[in-house]
């Protein structure tokens, strides 16, 4: 299954793109696909079982998700962004 991934902040800087498509039916599968294609993103933003503490994931601009087993549906957009909204 292909979903849309939108990147913001440091994840965008590391991936070098604002948006891409990725394969996977669960959060961890999508992250694994991204890690293969964007090694710098993976090294600085991803952890073994998900995301590093400075990075967050959000589904469709609605809910933040952390569980690697989070199921994704066709048409979903996964947002990957820097933590710490303050400023």
């Amino acid at each position, binding site marked *: 299954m292909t979903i849309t991934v939108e990147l913001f902040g440091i994840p965008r*800087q590391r991936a070098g793109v604002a948006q891409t498509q990725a394969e996977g039916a669960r959060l961890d599968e999508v992250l694994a696909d991204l890690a293969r294609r964007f090694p710098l993103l993976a090294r600085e933003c991803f952890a073994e079982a998900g995301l590093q503490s*400075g990075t967050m994931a959000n589904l469709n601009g609605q809910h933040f998700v952390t569980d690697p087993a989070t199921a994704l549906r066709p048409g979903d957009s996964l947002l990957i962004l820097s933590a710490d*909204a303050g400023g």
Partner: protein
Amino acid sequence: MERPLTSTPATPSGYHGCYLRIDLAHASAQRVPLAEDVLRRYLGGSGLGVYLLLRERSPSVDPLTPAAPLAFVFSPLVGSPLTTSAKFAVVSRSPLTERINDSLSSSHFAIGGKRAGCDAIVLVGRAAEPSVLIVDDGEVRLEPAGPLWGMSCSQAETQLRARLGHDFQVATIGPAGERQVRYATISHDGRHAGRGGSGAVLGSKNIKAVAVRGTQRTLWARPNELVALAKQLSAKSFGPATAKYRELGTAANLLVFNRLGALPTRNFQRGDFAAAADLSPEQMAQTHAKTRASCAACTIGCEHIYGLKGGDAQQPGVRMEYESLFALGPLCNVGDPDVVLSASRACDELGLDTISAGGTIAFAMECVERGLLDAPWLKFGDGQALLRALGEIGRGEGLGPRLAEGSRRLALALGRDAIHFAPQVKGLEIPGYEPRALQSMALGFAVGTRGADHNRSGAYELDFSQRVDRRSPGLETGGLAVEIEDKAALMDSLILCKFLRGVFVDFYAEAAEMLNLVTGWQTTPDELRATARRIVNAKKHFNVLCGWLPAEDTLPERFLNQPLPNDPAAVLSGERLRGLVAAYNTARAWSREGYPSAEQVADLGIA
């Protein structure tokens, strides 16, 4: 003035054990001892500042009258090798909210002020003429401000340092502070103690600038261990937890907030902005020259300074923060980055809080649209109108004096339903977090002791997490918001920059270790938790003495019971907000209405 007598009691390391109390009317200075017990219970910065103001009976005094106290407060960590510790608080009763106001700023003024030989400088009275206050290694004198009066913040700072010597550090007000604009700032080295109008308080005292210099360093209890810890902290501060601030700055929030429908636009009429991409740091880095800078003693370097296109090469660039960007851009429906940069520069030079300036102007733009205000030139999206309005505020011309009062007073003067869409809580304009889309933050705004504020309550952290549903938070949010607010109170009193917060694994334990290495105390994490609670209790007690009422802890009608137009699911009912406020009060062990208990007030130790 005469040199004050030194009568310092036994003092813990990291402190001088006294503050300078300067009566500007009588040109006299007194060195007042601070007991170790007081320092340990309030630390410094915001905490010590509110204690000093309570002792000065500040709540019973109009903040713009001569008797009103204004405190510059340093902290035990200032002058230490700990990264981001060169910070100071400016604390007073706010002329904008008439409640407690603690504004923080940073850099060499903190170091210079503490080396002058005191833990705080408290100003009372009013100088007979526009003056400069000079605190030179403990000696205090007033000099006529002369031609400095009327100058911009940066001009005045440059000229005064040229006159006194570059080893002086200078905090100034701009023309806005001289005119007592209720959201005027105090500026140092381009940074501002920004919110709540401390610049107006200083202006009301006829003080254009405070210059500090000194040679009096405080000891560190365990210097070798402190240096080792500082190196570790600096190393961590270079890591991924702060990469966002280093590489993009706080403006990186813009596109995220826009995507989540939480970017306040057109005076909070929407949560998304069509031209957001043009204002983003990602885009501006492509279209504008950019440099970076840091505060003194900081390893993060969050400041991103942009050059204006076609601007004067001799002019310095413009620091651009998310809050300035949102308030002078989307909130006024302005999408031209050069206009927003120019507006931000105007605020810096006039000495205006960008959030309150943008919020008040955006509100006025809507009032014009609705026929409540006769100023047809002041239209949403008109960048030149925005710049004109800022200029009129700074010069006290045209519409300026009305806008200088802030959105709440302007709304009350205009009447009809204007107060329902004035973007403020307790009179303080709301920062760049759409409350309907970020409802934990809505709670933080409602209960904030200094009004709608994102620095004292960081409840948005909950909205940007899986812990709560940001558009339908449960009552557990009350207790979670307390935890975050307490942490901020401690950081603001130690003082450390909040951009460090992501590097701590166990904040209270790590904070206790830092404090103990500096002071020699045996502080525990639990003691610091109690200290943080006490500081928040002290602020609330201050407000109660000012006449605070439970009805203040809410949001304007605009934000209640109606969906955010760009997100039908973003509805904050009045009932939900009232429930969250009650849950917050319960978590604080206050009454359900929000009054601290008699035991909590007694614990403050204010005679």
